[in-house]
């Protein structure tokens, strides 16, 4: 069933992707984030700049493209998100 995602859910999805796909420790490119995030390029770049601005993601400037890595604050946010998601789901609700 197709569902609308709330803003916090989209942020959690992007952060999860940045964490899970960063297997080599060199960050994740915007293409991979777009593929997993399921949103337009313009919306993703706007969201990424917001996440970098709030310190949830760290931007690694390479030669040609920027890569993104989840920060310590982002990991804490994801832990908080999953705890509260669990709490909300107990009441039959979604974050």
């Amino acid at each position, binding site marked *: 069933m197709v569902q609308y995602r709330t803003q916090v859910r989209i942020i959690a999805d992007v952060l999860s992707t940045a964490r899970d796909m960063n297997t080599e420790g060199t960050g994740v490119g915007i293409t991979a984030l777009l593929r997993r995030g399921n949103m337009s390029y313009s919306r993703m770049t706007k969201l990424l700049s917001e996440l970098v601005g709030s310190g949830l993601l760290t931007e690694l400037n390479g030669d040609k493209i920027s890569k993104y890595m989840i920060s310590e604050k982002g990991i804490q946010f994801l*832990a908080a998100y999953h705890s*509260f998601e669990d709490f909300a789901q107990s009441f039959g609700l979604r974050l």
Partner: protein
Amino acid sequence: MIAEFITLLYSKTLLTAVEMPLQSDMVLIGDLLQFIGVFVSFSIAYVAYRGVRHTDSSALLRLATAFVFLGFGFLVEGLVGLDQLVPFLPLTATAIVVGGLLLETTGYFFLAFSHAVDVLLSKRIGPALMLFPIFTISGAQLQNVLSFFAFYFVLYGVVETIYSYSRTKRPDTLFIALGLSLISAGTFFQWLSLLYQYVGVLSLLQIILQEMGLLILFTPVLGFARRGAKLDGAI
């Protein structure tokens, strides 16, 4: 002689003399139990509010709002009960009783509203939307109407929570549905107790069911505390 004794035994006067203190005690116990509801409601509201601060989630904001209203509703109803312990407190005014019930009903409304928004976000028609409120306002008092709405809102929450369980298969969601069902039964008895005020046991039954339901709703808070999530400063 025996006939007179039997007549006396079953006379309304004697029954009333025995029942009145018993009924009064039951009401007092019921009112004191409301404070458990206050504690549980504010605990749930606190955890939900922490969630709002950390995740900006509107679902948790609605949940926190619902339980803040419920907590204040139970508080007012419990304070009204204290009138029996402290006789000079003029707390039994109808306006205060109705105010408490209004707060409680608003809390249940926000609980139902949370589920209604969840239905809209998931692009489905919730099964509970088919349940329309069927009530009669035949000169009924405001208390009757509020009690009925409270019952309807909780019932909506029950149906949606069960639907959510069918989707997630999480046992704790089913447990919460059980808790909401008990609260729903409690609010139903509350409504009945207003319609049939001479049946004293209905009020006590309402409180017991409601408190049992609220204690079940407390389990996610315990689970949250047990996990000991160190979340401060996450965002």
